[in-house]
């Protein structure tokens, strides 16, 4: 990961507001993405992974949600949160592309795949019909769709799950963005197809220098695919660093719990432990460390003060008053 910084998210916060008041959904989320890097964002359902990506694309799912602070800096220093509609339209598609968990609902069912790709090319690059069509065939080939000339005229419902996800990747890559945001793109696929899609993403990174933000529940996938990991809990980042560091030496107790929950992790008892308790609702976040009601190492300090995200080793930061690796050392 020696590439240049291509995106930095700085203290991004999102709040939900309605007549009954307002509460934060995302709090102070910060990370950076370098050229050719694959960053994994993991966390339980509802921890704010999708919201983070939606916020940095300015695609929040409801008018009640608002970016309340922070910045999303592009390579050239511009802040996505401050862009005009025209600039935003250029950034989406040409700089940042996005793919989703359910390609069937995220593709237009009444427009052929080829036309959906060609449409973006024509709009962004101001190309004619024939040139756009030729480029579109090229992209279909690159994402591994066989026989692109005839598949281009097919509709979403005529593709299998894996091919549909490839088609959505092709649509997102139509205008050659530098960054691809992938929100759980393989969760709905079976294992073999999932492996194919992961290989495709890796290949796109290697060949095009694409940077990828990959959202998943699955630490195994992170281990296989990513360079860095950000762990989210209840709308905050709790640990962030290189993959090996975070997975082999988790410092936050939530990360440690996630690692222990992985069925493939060593130990091999066949019994998968779970983290007891439920994640909090954004409507009533606990004081102090948001994980303290579920944390075995919690004390009065944890309940009273929110731990800041601090860099303990170069590139590896963690928000915990009593980091797990230190606790383990003390016990040893």
């Amino acid at each position: 990961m020696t590439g240049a910084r291509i995106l930095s998210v700085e203290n991004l916060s999102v709040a939900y507001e309605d007549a009954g008041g307002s509460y934060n959904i995302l709090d102070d989320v910060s990370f950076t993405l370098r050229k050719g890097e694959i960053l994994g964002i993991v966390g339980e359902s509802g921890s704010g992974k999708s919201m983070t990506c939606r916020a940095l694309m300015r695609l929040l799912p409801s008018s009640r949600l608002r970016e309340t602070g922070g910045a999303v800096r592009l390579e050239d220093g511009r802040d996505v949160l401050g862009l005009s509609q025209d600039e935003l339209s250029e950034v989406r598609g040409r700089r940042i592309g996005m793919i989703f968990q359910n390609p069937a609902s995220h593709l237009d069912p009444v427009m052929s795949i080829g036309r959906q790709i060609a449409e973006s090319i024509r709009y962004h690059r101001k190309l004619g019909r024939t040139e756009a069509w030729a480029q579109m065939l090229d992209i279909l080939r690159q994402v591994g769709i066989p026989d692109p000339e005839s598949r281009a005229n097919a509709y979403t419902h005529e593709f299998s799950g894996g091919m549909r996800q490839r088609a959505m990747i092709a649509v997102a890559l139509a205008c050659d963005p530098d960054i691809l945001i992938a929100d759980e793109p393989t969760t709905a696929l079976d294992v073999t197809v999932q492996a194919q899609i992961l290989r495709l993403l890796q290949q796109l990174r290697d060949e095009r220098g694409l940077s990828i933000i990959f959202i998943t529940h699955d630490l195994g996938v992170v281990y296989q695919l990513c360079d860095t990991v950000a762990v989210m809990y209840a709308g905050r980042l709790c640990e962030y660093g290189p993959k090996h560091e975070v997975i082999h030496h988790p410092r936050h107790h939530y990360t440690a719990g996630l690692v222990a929950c992985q069925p493939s992790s060593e130990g091999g008892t066949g019994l998968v432990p779970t983290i007891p308790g439920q994640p909090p609702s954004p409507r009533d976040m606990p004081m102090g460390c948001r994980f303290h009601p579920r944390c075995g190492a919690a004390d009065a300090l944890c309940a009273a003060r929110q731990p800041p995200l601090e860099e303990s080793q170069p590139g590896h930061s963690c928000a915990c008053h009593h980091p797990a690796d230190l606790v383990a050392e003390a016990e040893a």
Partner: protein
Amino acid sequence: MNRYRFVLYRPIQLIPVLVGISVITFVLVRSIPGDPARVLLGPRTTESALARVREQFGLDEPLWLQYFYFVKNLFKGELGKSILYKVDVLKLIATRIEPTLVLVIGSVLLALLIATPMAAIAARRRGSWADHLIRIISTAGLGFPAFWLAIMLILLFSVQLGWFPVTGYGRTFWDKVHHMTLPCLTTGLALAAVLTRNLRASMLAELQSDQATAARARGLPETFVFWRHVVPNSLVPTVNLLAVNIGWLISGSVVIETVFAIPGMGQLLVRGIFTRDYMVVQGVAMVFACATVLVNFLADILTVTIDPRVKL
């Protein structure tokens, strides 16, 4: 293109439908109290004259035999002879079909022309004063009977302002357009009310849909997303709605042609009923029934064309 194969066998499936319709119209028409021969000859006539007319039109035969002749004529492409006008019903209909066609097609076009931009404005500015106004107008429009609206339009545009003729059809093309504007507006507005509400709802759903979000994520501007991805998807249910309403439009044309004195098939039907002209009534009813069936068939073809998922 095997998704269009239904075009070949659907007409075969329609045969039982048409048989059913022919039986029902035949029986219904004959259940209107009164005697066509008496209506034709007036109150002061002789029994023998009545018998002659009945014999001439086969009205003295048993009912099943009359139905047999009716069907036999249908196969020859005839609808029988009008008792009152003494001409082929088919010829009679041919002279009356144009105004009705103009009325129905014109109403649908006007309704689409009014409803699409109204629904678009309401859906894209949801909650704005424009949205509220459009919703109030379209809800109110659902409650107005067509004939009441027709009378109001006549009072305003014909009587007060003198912009449009009160009644009639006209001869030259522009003359006809001039005459048919108010009638088409009457049914068009009522239909536009239904369409606007329906289109607005499906546009709102499509604006929130995943595929629209994904289109925005590709950097396509909102107007582009709306017209290329939201509108085509929201039109799918609208085609069905239009097909369902075609029966209502045809029956509405009977009322509108009466109010505006338009020499169309609706007027022919009403006169046929008053004069007990069985042949005319069952002929027009058959044509109306076939038209409804045909429109639904066309709507199916249109649905298959705009929605690639549909298989019939």
